């Protein structure tokens, strides 16, 4: 066993050390695999970034209440009196005897996207003072907080970067709606940063919505109170609503996008992978072909054929590893943190997010590279092992 391992190691090292003599074909294998990994990792990093923005927004100790049948705030609708009833539900946290719940509006406004210069559905949230208390992660980083009862608004950091016309100090003014941007806020990179916030009352007037809202966001006294909170709401004959833990609500919104990215990303990676494996097979066949005499000599000297198989596979895996690491690094350097915005079809509004090349994606990319290397090396390795020694030694 030990002898076999030593033999294998010797032959593998011999193979790897002769790579520089076959630099051209080896580069083909490395670049091919690296290219697949770059595309694979960067496409999936879109999904990861999107998910990070949405999942980061939800807290397990907050609940969102919407009209029964609505999957998102966008399609939901609650009247003012309904929201007042919801605010009396048990299980809510209280501060100074005020229930920590806020009725909010969620609509969109047409603003041009900086990247395309075309109109996009930018989410605008009508809030109540409690909205800010409930979300301690929201901090104004520039300018100041809006004053309730005015047309002042604050915008998320990502929204300012992605959309035109909402810079600090600017005014959005049409006959129907007028907003004055007085501050920019940060929300730990979550989806709230894609939004514009203003007083719900201001927004109700502008959107001719009367005394109506889309949802109620509630802070629970503990995550364990959710079942009682939900039961009270859903069994209340005055209401026809559904309640969701906020983190569940946001993670459900990532499903469509994540499925889409995975579907497209895996298909592309799979097809590119086949092409790269073909490239690797060609490379390794060349490697075996140019080393035919060398391999035959080793075998004649008494090295067993398994050590030759392993050495060819080892060489192919080494090239794949270089490609995998290189591709991963390239994807990280080019795309990690790249900011963009896309449509969240569940809320019919834009979500700004940054590509996230996560360690898990890099590992997936490397594993995929090694799989390609293994498949690409397999047949050439078999061929090397099966070479009839006498014929091989005679070959030029």
């Amino acid at each position, binding site marked *: 066993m030990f002898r076999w391992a030593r033999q294998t190691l010797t032959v593998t090292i011999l193979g790897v050390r002769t790579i520089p003599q076959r630099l051209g074909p080896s580069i*083909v294998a490395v670049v091919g695999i690296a290219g697949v990994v770059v595309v694979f990792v960067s496409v999936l990093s879109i999904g990861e970034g999107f998910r990070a923005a949405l999942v980061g927004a939800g807290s397990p100790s907050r609940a969102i209440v919407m009209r029964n*049948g609505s999957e998102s705030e966008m399609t939901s609708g609650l009247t003012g009196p309904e929201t007042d009833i919801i605010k009396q539900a048990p299980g809510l946290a209280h501060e100074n005897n005020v229930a920590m719940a806020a009725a909010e509006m969620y609509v969109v406004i047409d603003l041009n*996207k900086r990247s395309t210069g075309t109109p996009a*559905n930018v989410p605008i949230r009508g809030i109540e003072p409690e909205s800010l208390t409930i979300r301690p992660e929201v901090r104004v980083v520039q300018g100041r907080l809006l004053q309730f009862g005015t047309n002042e608004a604050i915008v998320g950091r990502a929204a300012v970067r992605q959309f035109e016309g909402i810079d600090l100090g600017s005014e959005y003014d049409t006959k129907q709606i007028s907003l004055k941007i007085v501050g920019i806020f940060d929300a730990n990179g979550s989806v709230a940063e894609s939004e514009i916030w203003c007083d719900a009352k201001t927004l109700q007037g502008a959107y001719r919505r009367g005394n109506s809202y889309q949802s109620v966001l509630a802070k629970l006294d503990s995550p364990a109170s959710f079942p009682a909170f939900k039961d009270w709401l859903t069994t209340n004959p005055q209401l026809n609503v559904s309640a969701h833990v906020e983190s569940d609500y946001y993670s459900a919104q990532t499903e469509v996008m994540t499925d889409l990215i995975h579907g497209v990303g895996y298909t592309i990676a799979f097809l590119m992978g086949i092409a790269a494996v073909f*490239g690797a097979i*060609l490379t390794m066949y060349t490697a075996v072909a140019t080393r035919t005499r060398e391999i035959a000599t080793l075998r004649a000297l008494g090295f067993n054929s398994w050590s030759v198989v392993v050495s060819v596979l080892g060489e192919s895996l080494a090239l794949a590893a270089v490609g995998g690491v290189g591709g991963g690094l390239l994807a990280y350097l080019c795309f990690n943190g790249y900011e*963009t915005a896309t*449509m969240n079809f569940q809320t019919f509004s834009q979500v700004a997010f940054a590509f996230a090349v996560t360690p898990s994606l890099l590992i997936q990319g490397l594993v995929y590279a090694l799989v390609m290397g293994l498949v690409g090396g397999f047949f050439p390795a078999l061929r090397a092992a099966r070479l009839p020694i006498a014929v091989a030694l005679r070959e030029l």
Partner: protein
Amino acid sequence: MKFFYLIWRSLMRRKFRAAFTFGCIVVSFVLFSYLTIVTTAFTLGVDFAGANRLWLYDKVSIIQFVPVAYLNDILKTPGVEAATDCTWFGGSYQDKPNQFAVFATDLDEYLKLYPEFKVPPDELKAALADRQGAIVGRDTATRYGWKIGDRIPLKADIWMPATGITWYFNLDAIYDASAEVDKTQFLFRYDYFDENRKAGKGNVSWYVIKLSDPSQAAAVAAALDDHFANSQAETKTAPEKAVIADFAKQTGNIGLMLTLILTVVFFIILIVVANTMAQSVRERTSEIGVLKTLGFSDPIVLMLVLSESVLLAVVGGWSTLALMYIFVRHGSFNMAMLPVFVFKTSSLVLGLGLALALGVLAGILPAVGAMRLKITDALRRN
């Protein structure tokens, strides 16, 4: 052409290598086809949108409503030939948010505005006579196995009915259309909708307007927006093409992503094929020396090697593209339920060009090397 056999034999010199290089090219062009089909779907078939149609909707956002009463004013505007209102319904079927567009409209008028939607006359008659009638696209009907006469429940999310939370429709007609037209829509009657919705009566989402003269689009749009400037809902009017194109861009810069991915793919096959050619020429050094000794001129040697890589790329690329093109044109199914499932002719032409470029680029360096080879060196080298 008289050298074809020679080129062919050179390629087949190492059958194995030729086969894998060929495979690499085939797979890459399958990927190219897939990417262009997906991109076309993401741009929502904007290339096929009608040039003589305008959309009119609320200025602040298309999620806002405009009064149904605007219809008369719109029809009275000079340059407008026909118009109808549409109201987005949303909804969910079998507890999943609808992945097809559902909207209330004037069915008869809508079909006049969209002559590309083909409905059998008897089915249309049935739909127009039925208050709960619905007309559904072929793709959606196939996807859910719906047949004419089926009763279809859609759960409301935006528009609550007077009682309960479910609306019921009768599938009276199925529309068909050519490949590039969205065949997933679900249309039903506005009068039934307006009468039974709990709130928001008299409001619609957008108007589709047909122009009598497409060249007057900008003037008519401006006239309409001016007309409604001082009413309760200010409007924005734009050509349907622009509305769809802008909407598609909301997803992101899909075109740029496609270009980036294709560049990587193209680069990979380029080096694979170039490497194959380089190896092949290196192995044949002495053969090339012999050819030159026999009197083959340098340009002919260059052309021979170049033809080899072009042949490989063109046969592999073009046959794959042709097969994919025919497959998508004549396939009656639509994988992944894309709203449009087409392989654009312009994409096909791009692909054919790419294959040719690939062959030339991959072969040029080895071919020049072969051309410059001196007979004495070539014959000496082993």
